[in-house]
């Protein structure tokens, strides 16, 4: 069991490369998020979920412990490099999101690739940003209706953009046939 689940060089390399592709997407996404901000009503929160996708896609592809955390960390730190800002807060957010995704996948014993696993991970990752934002952005002092709106949109976005879209990407990659080289050999669950 242990041997089967430990990360090989291939696993790590594939994870980090996937994460860095998403790092480039993340930094482009930063522009989308920023442009949507002044419209108010938290329309920008609808795109927030994209920032959890690296962990989910990497997990679905490799299905081993630690992958989600490494992927999210690599994507976040890659993003800081692309954006020319070593932003430690971004990396801390990334680690927290990767960690909670990791916990979700652990509960599924790292062998579930059904779409609901991905969606649960996306939702949990969205919820995990609440405590950090609460303290960093003084959210306690924002009007309550506004706060609820903000987090419902963010959770919705986590489910759709990170969970559903992440799973779609995984299925697309699976169809290309490259996945027979990487990840866990024994596949005891099939995609829905």
């Amino acid at each position, binding site marked *: 069991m242990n041997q089967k689940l430990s990360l090989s060089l291939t696993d790590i*390399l594939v994870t980090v490369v*996937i994460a860095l592709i998403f790092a480039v997407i993340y930094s482009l996404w930063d522009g989308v998020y920023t442009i949507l901000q002044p419209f108010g009503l938290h329309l920008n929160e609808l795109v927030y979920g994209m920032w959890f996708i690296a962990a989910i896609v990497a997990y679905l592809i490799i299905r081993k412990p630690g992958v989600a955390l490494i992927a999210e960390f690599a994507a976040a730190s890659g993003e800081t490099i692309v954006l020319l800002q070593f932003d430690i807060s971004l990396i801390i957010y990334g680690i927290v999101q990767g960690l909670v995704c990791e916990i979700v996948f652990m509960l599924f014993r790292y062998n579930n690739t059904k779409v609901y696993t991905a969606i649960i991970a996306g939702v949990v990752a969205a919820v995990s940003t609440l405590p950090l934002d609460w303290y960093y952005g003084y959210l306690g002092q924002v009007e309550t209706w506004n706060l609820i709106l903000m987090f419902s949109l963010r959770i919705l976005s986590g489910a759709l953009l990170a969970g559903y879209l992440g799973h779609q990407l995984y299925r697309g990659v699976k169809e290309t046939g490259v996945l027979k080289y990487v990840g866990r050999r024994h596949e005891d669950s099939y995609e829905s």
Partner: protein
Amino acid sequence: MFDSIRLYETFINRVNPLSKILMATLLFVTVLLIHNPNTLLYFLLFNLILLIILSGIKPQYILALLGAIFISGILSSTYMILYGQGDTTLYRLGIIHISQESLIRGIHVAMRGVILSLFGALIIFTTRITDIFYALMIHLKLPPKYAYSFMAAIRMVPLIISEYMQLRQAKKVRAPLINKKYVTGFAAVKSTIITLLSQSIRRSYRLSIAMESKGFSNNKRSFYRETSFSRLDLYFFLLLLISLLISIYLSQHCFIFNTNDARSI
């Protein structure tokens, strides 16, 4: 990485990368613990000066970056400015309610982001990325397979970008022949990402096989570059500490914002 836009090197270039990361983490915690907008403002000015003087980057690039940092800082706090709680109304339009309290809080949150970005930019401009991984391996005993995976993957990013360009051109040429949804729109984005992902997986698989066949393992190894700690690390830390202390001192004596605490005004 930034050699072409660098004018001069400063002692920050020789500070150990790990110290820089540690200081950035400490800075994050410090900034979270500062609730006085005056302190934050003075500290921001110090960080701005540090970036301009110590990064050694050509001024026009610094200016462009500063513009981006300040705009995104202001935009990131619009939620607080427009919807924050407060009694002293400055402006009201429908659901938008700008009060003096929410304005100051919004600026406070924006300054937090800007300070972290300024310091982060200083670090990125003065650090070679490979040195971070060497430092992690040498001082923190990070297993080489993680560090070299990162370094190899970073090398692949330009390849991936050129692959993306190729893909885009190929689609342009074939645009009249293929279904329109694969040229523009969601399906196009999806198919592009899937192509890039599958190509990169194949490439990293090949690379890892090549590395392992040449004997790459987690055995004891020597390093091409050495990193070490020196007195410069201490100087850098003191520089930050002193500017923080001066900011706190100044904020007690010259007010700019008419408050001491952004939480309770």
